[in-house]
């Protein structure tokens, strides 16, 4: 594009950058407030806290039983990741390779859970899970979380599978591989980058998924984000710093996986969820 040197253009660009800067500065200041508060001894009415300490972390660790919460969180998250891969990848393969009557309807079925917000379908879903006795324990939380993640894996995987040359599969078939062998020895190695990306995104999304877990979790099946919600909701019962320490632990857990995920995927993939 031709470089535009008019004053109005420059002013407009400056205004845009100010807006971006304002947003980013406030975002980081907000995160910094939580981190600072979690390390402070007392912080009332001053720019910076009166002193620094790490004791709130051990306090939060025991007060909120974070060991249990973290182990429950990771059991749930890894179950969701494994199951959505097991259910999603074969389905994506079938959808990428075959045209069958009713395919459009099936695709619609996979798009809807991503377009409808979790709280809208979560309430009827939680009702069914309570009636069948799943909700309140880990299996119910896993089932509820799989509803958006299975379609997510399918929609991310379809383009990955479509770009693999069908001749490779035909060659494997000629040499006598059945569908299972084809999957294990040919497709899986070729699809590994795609599967890894999809599953990491599922992991990040499940860690941050509040609504579905909140609606279906019982006292022993809370994930970290739900425990954080209850702590903030009952603020005043515990020291602010202790809640902030828990928030920092949650941030670190999520951001570690985000950083790992970003090595394999484009950041926009976390957001642009349902591109047809």
């Amino acid at each position: 594009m031709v470089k535009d040197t008019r004053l109005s253009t420059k002013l407009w660009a400056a205004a845009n950058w100010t807006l971006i800067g304002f947003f980013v500065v406030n975002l980081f200041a907000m995160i910094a407030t939580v981190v600072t508060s979690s390390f402070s001894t007392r912080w009332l009415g001053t720019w910076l806290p009166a002193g620094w300490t790490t004791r709130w972390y051990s306090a939060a660790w025991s007060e909120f039983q974070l060991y249990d919460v973290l182990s429950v969180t990771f059991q749930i998250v890894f179950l969701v990741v494994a199951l959505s891969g097991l259910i999603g990848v074969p389905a994506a393969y079938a959808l990428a390779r075959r045209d069958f009557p009713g395919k459009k309807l099936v695709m619609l079925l996979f798009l809807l859970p991503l377009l409808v917000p979790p709280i809208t379908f979560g309430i009827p879903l939680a009702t069914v899970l309570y009636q069948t006795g799943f909700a309140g324990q880990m299996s119910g939380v896993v089932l509820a979380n799989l509803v958006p993640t299975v379609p997510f894996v399918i929609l991310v995987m379809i383009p990955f599978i479509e770009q693999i040359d069908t001749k490779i599969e035909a060659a494997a078939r000629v040499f006598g591989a059945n569908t299972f062998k084809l999957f294990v020895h040919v497709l899986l190695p070729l699809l590994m980058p795609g599967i890894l990306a999809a599953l990491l995104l599922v992991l990040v999304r499940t860690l941050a998924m509040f609504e579905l877990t909140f609606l279906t979790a019982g006292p022993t099946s809370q994930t970290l984000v739900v425990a954080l919600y209850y702590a903030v909701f009952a603020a005043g019962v515990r020291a602010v710093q202790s809640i902030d320490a828990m928030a920092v632990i949650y941030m670190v857990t999520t951001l570690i996986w985000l950083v790992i995920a970003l090595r394999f995927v484009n950041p926009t993939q976390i957001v642009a969820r349902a591109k047809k």
Partner: protein
Amino acid sequence: MSTDTSTIPLKQRLAARGLDGLTLLVLPAVLFLLALFIYPFFYGLFLSFEPKQGGIFANYQRFFSDRFLYGTIATTLWLALPVTIATLLLAIPIAFRVRLMKNQRLLTTILVIPITLGTVLVAEGLLNYLGPQGWFNRVLMTFGIISSPVKLLHNYWGVMLSLVITGFPFTFLLTLSYLSGIDPALEQAGATLGAGPWDRFKHILFPLLLPGLAITFCLSFVQAFSVFPSAVLLGAPSGPTRVISIAAYQAAFEEYDYSMASAVAMIMGVVQLTIVVVVLAARGLLYRGPAGGGKG
């Protein structure tokens, strides 16, 4: 053809239509979603017509006669529509700016952070940051812009700000991906013919972007409409920010009236769907051709 179809085995006839062993791999996923997405929806729909007391429409009658309940629709719209429009108005110029950048990865990564942290953490952070003694008010007071702290928590503005923070990155990245789908040759042609930046925006890029913006609007609106944690933590959940999801949650988990909760969830879905259908119908009137960024 029709005379000898009977001699072809059923298996081959099905395979010719794309149904063979491989197609069956889609079945687990379909069955799973039928059981946990479609079935709960219809279960909820029927349950909403079986109220604890009264006729089949009693839940809906109760919802639309109790101001505390039907008022939640207006409250939620009053939050969700301004938030969606504000995020779009912010996202469009910034997306146009960022599109010209060579290295977008750092900025997009920063913008993804609030989404991955989620609404609960943003709410917790804003409680500290926007509080009367928080850094936000302190900076404004130091610069003399305000004389006493602005009250931004436990009211409409707290929820609004948190929704903009969590909603803006989503809207921005979606707009950016639609914008980068527009063929740059069109804009260059316009520039060659002497169109300035504003003319190029008004006559070339904006019309081509509109279909994508319609989709972005729908997705952002639906997200904002189903606000829950920030309305409880940052708002005034019994008053000005009593949104419809709070009403549904209270019916289900405080009154244990699943029938009423399903009715509220259905009403919530219908309102969302109505707005989406209206926007998409308007989108149908727009140009969508090979030049458009209409990936969606």
